[in-house]
């Protein structure tokens, strides 16, 4: 049964997609959801990928788009029960692992990212950790390239400004 599903795609390729994108996809989904739900959405995306009759042309972009749709759908369901999207940062599990050789403090980076407008944060997540081109990002979020580019630049400027502020006045 599993062999039937995987026969359309190379097993090694599937492993590389999984190993290369799983964590990035979970991080992207955490733009909207807590970790547990984000993992469920990513798992669902991989299941959908494996049960596709034909392998998508651009698998990374397909995975990010599927995760985005799944996360937003789940967020809407959650929002109908508890409207506290703005307070998502409270009690968030860390997005990044802290390491001593990091140029930026992981916790500070997460807090700064969470202060960004959601559409800017999404572009930054897709660009830096999703490693997608701005064109791919535009296709995923359904916005023109110029809009994506301006969002990205604005997000970087905002991050730099807030990081400098946090250096002056520690967020903790």
């Amino acid at each position, binding site marked *: 049964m599993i062999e039937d599903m995987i026969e359309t795609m190379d097993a090694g390729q599937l492993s590389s997609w999984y190993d290369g994108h799983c*964590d990035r*996809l979970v991080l992207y989904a955490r733009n909207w959801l807590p970790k547990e739900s984000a993992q469920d959405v990513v798992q669902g995306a991989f299941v959908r990928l494996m049960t596709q009759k034909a392998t998508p042309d651009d698998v990374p972009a397909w995975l990010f788009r599927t995760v985005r749709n799944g996360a937003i759908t789940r967020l809407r369901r959650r929002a109908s029960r508890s409207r506290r999207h703005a307070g998502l940062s409270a009690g968030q599990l860390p997005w*990044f*692992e802290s390491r001593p050789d990091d140029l930026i403090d992981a916790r500070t980076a997460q807090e700064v990212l969470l202060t960004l407008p959601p559409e800017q944060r999404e572009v930054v997540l897709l660009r830096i950790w999703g490693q997608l081109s701005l064109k791919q990002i535009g296709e995923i979020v359904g916005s023109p390239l110029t809009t994506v580019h301006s969002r990205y*630049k604005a997000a*970087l400027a905002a991050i730099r400004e807030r990081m400098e502020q946090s250096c002056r006045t520690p967020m903790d």
Partner: protein
Amino acid sequence: MQNTDGLTPMDRELEAALGGLRIAPAAISRDGVIFDAGRASARRRSRLWQGSSCILALLLLASVVWRPTPTAPQRPAETVAQHPVDISPAALSAASTQAIDSEQVRAFRRYLRMRQAVLERGVDALPASTEIPGGIDPPLTRESLDELLSST
């Protein structure tokens, strides 16, 4: 990285610093994903079978319950002529020649002529009886019966 035109060196430094952060690992096992994919596939297949079985059962039920009632042979509706119909021999002949073949037409004409003659002159107008082609079997006698029995 592509399409980053317009970024300042500071932007690129910030990109690199952010990109150096290690993402917290997800707690999703590959085996779990494969298991879920197999379960989803099996569920889809079983739904396919269930659906086709339901359709077949419904068709069977429908064929048992619904029996087409035999319809009575259609007869043309009898109509009463509102106007007097011309039933003269000529009219009948003319009307019937379309549907009857030529042999029947000739026989019918003979009959009409004979009928007209009988009406005018009585039974004397009937022609003398003619011998049926092929003849009539002779009356059965005892001798001929014995002969028939002995031949069989």
